[in-house]
């Protein structure tokens, strides 16, 4: 802890020296020192969490990875890489790292970055040729009935764009999925391509022939690998397709508690199927082998996958070279842009690309509505070590640090929002690249918040995504920051004549990258099923609570069937984040609601009855739970949560927010006789005033219309 604070403070001291009147720098400093006292408890907790996490990760690696070739041994590499810790786990591109000097090393990196750039260009142009259209859709796959898995042989450059889910292992060569390169010998990766998002593509990158192996040897090796994966002799046709530069991937059906839980609801039974547009244009390619493992290949205009514009590829490649090159500070990358401009997809792509070169990426979640790793309403700092090969709800993870904000947007309390983020920022290690994901709110105060975030976190690279002809908001260039006012931060005072004007930009000037999104429907939020933001939030919550289901296949249990934890009313504080409730009615708000499980540093000791928080604290949140009932006679809360008991023991505060249980979890409770609480069939929306507050945006005035005509 102390280390980190020291790291921050010299910088802030510097800046206060230079700009004596700069308030916000001062503030950071003051807070940081004050935090020293309070953060011990949470830090300890964080350690425990990481302790809990790490072994599982390693075990997974052991299970799947075959011995890594010596030349890319992680230890060796760490010694060689002098400037940064190029830590270990993923060995992508590692074979190229033979030279020992760091300068050559970085040269290699930039070469790779360029290759990515080139690669992207190829893959976006080549599928349009006729040859690819005809040939590319013939997937040479063979299904192994005894093991229930499929082997797919792909030619170099072949692209499989698909819907569905599967577990992918690369057997020979290497393939790329959403920026992440999967090589032979790596662990299997789960791929999710539900109709809510842009379909995933598997691109065969072929094989880098290692020195000392000629084409023939490669071919024999590939064929041997294919044979190994079949109990019976595979068809000659498949074998004839195998080439020394082709890729061989193993696809297995994917069945996890998440997929079982989601598909157990009739409304979500097609969550891994095609969307209505794809169905209409008959984009599905009939392939019994692929559908046996849960994959539907797409063709035609629907099979475009991720559309990478030139500016997009340039941005990714310059960010990759920023990480590879020399730098004083680790890159801190902030992606921003209006709603549906492709921020989160860009971030996923970037994370995956970075994970080809580094073991972990730090990710600061500032978007409350569409969170990447957590249920909605949470702000979090995550260490990402695994690629993101699917939409957010398929890869929920326990973050390193989390604060429960309790609402899907931050308008109600911008100060608490910013303070929460600042408290998370303290935990950034500064040893791996940081990616900051922001909200789609870029007007008015939303824009001011962006300015704050860039200033507060000393962002080194700002990626601004826009679509259409005109940018959606002011470009966040370094020049603009000379005069930009944020919600909390303000531009430095204009330089007096005596001072050197050049000294200012050097302090915190960032690289500005503008990205033009060119995919179809950029800027318009999805209207199809499972694409609306509230549906995605519900999916994230369902995904979170699917962790309660047992990992072994078995009956899917509704939430109310789990044996709850219990805690006395007086031992945990309870409060609302989003509105005021009369304290004597607080249990009416809490019953059968989602609560954020938080840890206050103070001890909570009530004198009988609930302990009601007088204001919303900013504190570590370890997860969510459902307050499944209240025992008034014994003064107990009953809680159902996937949070492990060793973490739950630290929880002494329950925060209620506007994040509500997905309706489906309340309306479908099998096995209950009689009426369900909070559920009715008698509510009529026909009655005046029965609906929620309705906001018409862009209500035209009659006079205005006339003048237009």
């Amino acid at each position, binding site marked *: 802890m102390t280390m980190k604070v020291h790291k921050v403070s010299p910088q802030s001291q510097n800046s206060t020296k230079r700009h004596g009147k700069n308030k916000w720098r001062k503030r950071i400093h003051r807070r940081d020192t004050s935090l020293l006292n309070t953060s011990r408890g949470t830090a300890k907790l964080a350690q425990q969490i990481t302790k809990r996490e790490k072994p599982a990760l390693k075990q997974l690696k052991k299970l799947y990875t075959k011995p890594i070739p010596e030349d890319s041994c992680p230890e060796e590499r760490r010694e060689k890489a002098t400037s940064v810790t190029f830590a270990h786990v993923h060995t992508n591109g590692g074979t190229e790292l033979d030279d020992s000097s760091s300068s050559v090393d970085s040269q290699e990196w930039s070469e790779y970055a360029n290759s990515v750039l080139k690669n992207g260009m190829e893959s976006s142009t080549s599928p349009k040729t006729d040859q690819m259209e005809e040939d590319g859709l013939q997937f040479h796959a063979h299904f192994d009935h005894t093991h229930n898995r499929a082997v797919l042989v792909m030619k170099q450059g072949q692209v499989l764009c698909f819907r569905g889910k599967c577990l992918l292992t690369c057997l020979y060569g290497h393939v790329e999925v959403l920026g992440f390169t999967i090589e032979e010998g790596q662990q299997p990766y789960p791929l999710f391509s539900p109709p809510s998002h842009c379909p995933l593509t598997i691109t065969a990158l072929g094989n880098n022939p290692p020195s000392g192996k000629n084409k023939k040897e490669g071919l024999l090796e590939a064929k041997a690998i294919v044979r190994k994966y079949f109990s019976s002799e595979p068809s000659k046709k498949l074998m004839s397709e195998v080439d020394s530069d082709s890729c061989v991937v193993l696809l297995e059906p994917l069945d996890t508690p998440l997929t079982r839980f989601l598909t157990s609801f009739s409304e979500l039974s097609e969550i891994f199927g095609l969307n209505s547009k794809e169905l209409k244009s008959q984009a599905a390619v009939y392939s019994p082998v692929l559908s046996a493992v849960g994959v539907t290949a797409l063709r035609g205009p629907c099979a475009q996958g991720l559309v990478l514009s030139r500016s997009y590829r340039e941005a990714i490649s310059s960010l990759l070279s920023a990480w590879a090159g020399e730098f004083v500070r680790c890159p801190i990358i902030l992606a921003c842009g209006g709603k549906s401009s492709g921020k989160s997809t860009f971030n996923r792509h970037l994370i995956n690309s970075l994970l080809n070169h580094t073991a972990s990426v730090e990710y600061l979640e500032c978007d409350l509505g569409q969170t990447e790793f957590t249920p909605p309403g949470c702000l979090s700092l995550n260490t990402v070590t695994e690629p993101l090969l699917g939409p957010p709800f398929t890869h929920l993870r326990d973050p390193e640090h989390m604060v429960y904000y309790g609402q899907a947007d931050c308008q109600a309390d911008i*100060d608490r929002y910013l303070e929460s983020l600042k408290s998370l920022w303290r935990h950034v290690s500064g040893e791996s690249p940081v990616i900051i994901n922001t909200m789609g709110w870029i007007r008015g105060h939303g824009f001011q918040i962006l300015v704050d975030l860039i200033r507060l976190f000393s962002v080194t690279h700002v990626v601004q995504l826009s679509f259409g002809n005109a940018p959606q908001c002011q470009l966040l260039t370094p020049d603009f920051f000379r005069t930009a006012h944020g919600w909390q931060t303000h531009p430095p005072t204009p330089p007096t004549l005596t001072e050197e004007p050049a000294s200012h930009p050097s302090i915190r000037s960032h690289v500005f990258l503008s990205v033009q999104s060119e995919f179809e429907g950029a800027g318009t939020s999805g209207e199809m099923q499972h694409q609306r933001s509230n549906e995605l939030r519900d999916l994230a919550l369902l995904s979170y609570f699917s962790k309660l289901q047992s990992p072994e296949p078995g*009956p899917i249990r509704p939430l109310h069937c789990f044996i709850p934890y219990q805690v006395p009313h007086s031992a945990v504080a309870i409060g609302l984040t989003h509105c005021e409730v*009369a304290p004597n009615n607080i249990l*009416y708000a809490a019953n059968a609601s989602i609560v954020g499980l938080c840890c206050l540093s103070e001890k909570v000791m009530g004198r009988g009855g*609930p302990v009601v928080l007088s204001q919303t604290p900013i504190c570590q949140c370890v997860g969510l739970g459902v307050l499944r009932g209240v025992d008034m006679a014994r003064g107990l809360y009953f809680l159902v949560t996937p949070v492990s008991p060793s973490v739950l023991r630290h929880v002494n505060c329950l925060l209620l927010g506007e994040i509500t249980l997905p309706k489906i979890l309340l309306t479908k409770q099998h096995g209950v006789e009689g009426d369900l609480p909070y559920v009715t069939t*008698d509510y009529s929306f026909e009655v005046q005033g*029965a609906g929620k507050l309705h906001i018409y945006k862009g209500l035209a005035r009659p006079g205005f219309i006339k003048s237009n005509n």
Partner: protein
Amino acid sequence: MKKKTVGKTRHVVAWMNKAEYEHVLEYLFSKEPALQKHALHRISAWKGRFGQSTPVAVDSTADLVRCQVLDSKGQLESNDLVLLYGMALVRFVNLITERQQKRVARPLRRLAGNINIPEWVVNLRHDLTHRRLPSLKWCRKGCGFVLDWLHQEYWSRQMGSQLTEDWNTSSEEEDEEEFVKKQEEDLLRRQKEIEAHKKVRELLISYEREQFQTYEELAKQGGQRGVWPDASADLSWILTQIKHFATEARDILVDVLIQDGFLIPTAEQLESLDIDPSEDSVDMFAPCLPRVFLHFWLPCLKVLNSSIFINLILDKLFAELSNEPSSHRTYYIASWISEILLCNSKSELKAHKRLKISKERIFMNRLQFPWQNLISACVNAPCPATPFLLRQILSDMDQPLPHDAQQNLLQLCSIYTQGYHGNSSPGPSDPAQPVYTLQNLQERLKSNAAQNRDTSSNHTPRSVQAPPTEELQEKLSAETVQERNFALRGSAWSVCTDKVPWKQYPLGKVPGQPEDPSCLMVECYSTFTVFDQQVELDQLPRHHGNRSVPLQSRASGSDGPLWTHSDLSKLKAGLKLF
């Protein structure tokens, strides 16, 4: 609440059940500030649950009622109140008409008119936003009107309450008039009934008199075994009268018939018919009408013979039997039931048709009885003769029950009625006590009936509908519970180890939770303030340096949902308004 059907959409609402909704509705419009405030507090919790989807009407109602509550306190000046009322009224008019807006803005006046909000309310809004502030009087008037509107248009119509039509049209005077009218009608009807009863009794008595004469003549001529003559002119006339009456008021006729002195003979009557009235002479377990007595009534019953009449009289006889009448009455009621059943019996019917001895039969053609009803009526009216009657019914059904079901039913029946076998068995001799057994019997009967329906008639198979048998309830091994509790040691948390079938309790419900809408009210709570908030650092130095955690305990000693005045003042003093 209405039973949930599959077709209806289930909505998630903030109230636990309809009772809670009605509780709040009642308090909101109670005109009693203490109760209104109670309702407002509950709505604050509802808003917490609803979040952004709070119904506009609930929100507006709460705001307006809040104004009334604050007004009633008398602590605010009228200028303050105008501002409060003003905001609530402006919001109401804007929000309630918002739904009707289309792409182009339309005048509020028209939108409000569509939903029966008068122009003066819209004008009031206009004054509040653009002109001179209206007077408090106008604000109060507007608030009162709008609350009435909300009551009528939202609260009374929501949640399946369909009382709106009456609520709107009928005034209290009309109600009163109607009530008086109804009372008069009732009186008139009762009067008519009494008249009818009198008339029937007279008719039947004259019938009896006529028949006695015939009997006496018959006895003089040569023993009671002789054949009764055809009806005399007098008797025929009486019979036509009875028949005529039966079409008018069958109910009354049957009622009178089963009174003592008619179908149930008095001892006197029996003696005059030369029948031994003592109970020793009859078999309580196998009742049988004395032939003479049957003949005595045959002409009358034959006249009345119709399937409706027979069914009705069977019903009434069983009903009478279930009232546990005297043993004499019981015997004769049972006898009549048995006689009717016998007349309808398949085998008997055939035999008699062949032999052409139709004279002793009340009716000739086999009737369709509601067999299931008969069985339940029969077991509902336990008496010593029940097994006997039940056997008759069971053997005569069109679609007989399975044999073992019949046996079980009869056995249960005789177990229950064995108390009547003198005092030889220690079984339940008090007929009032063993109701338990009767319930069992009924259950048995029901299941048998269901079984019967399933097997005999080809209805859709229903056994498949049983709920999924797979065990949804999570089961934790003792080790898992121990492991979890070990991980939780030292904290207030633990795994709930109560033996509770959680799968039966939906989210929001726990064992022993009452249905009472006030069951989650907190009587006593403490406030917790976290002082080292980073948020506060650069803002108002409100909680400077104070790092202690003051716990203010506030206990109000009320045990019900209603607050006493002292509670209220305590809360008023202690709570900040929101």
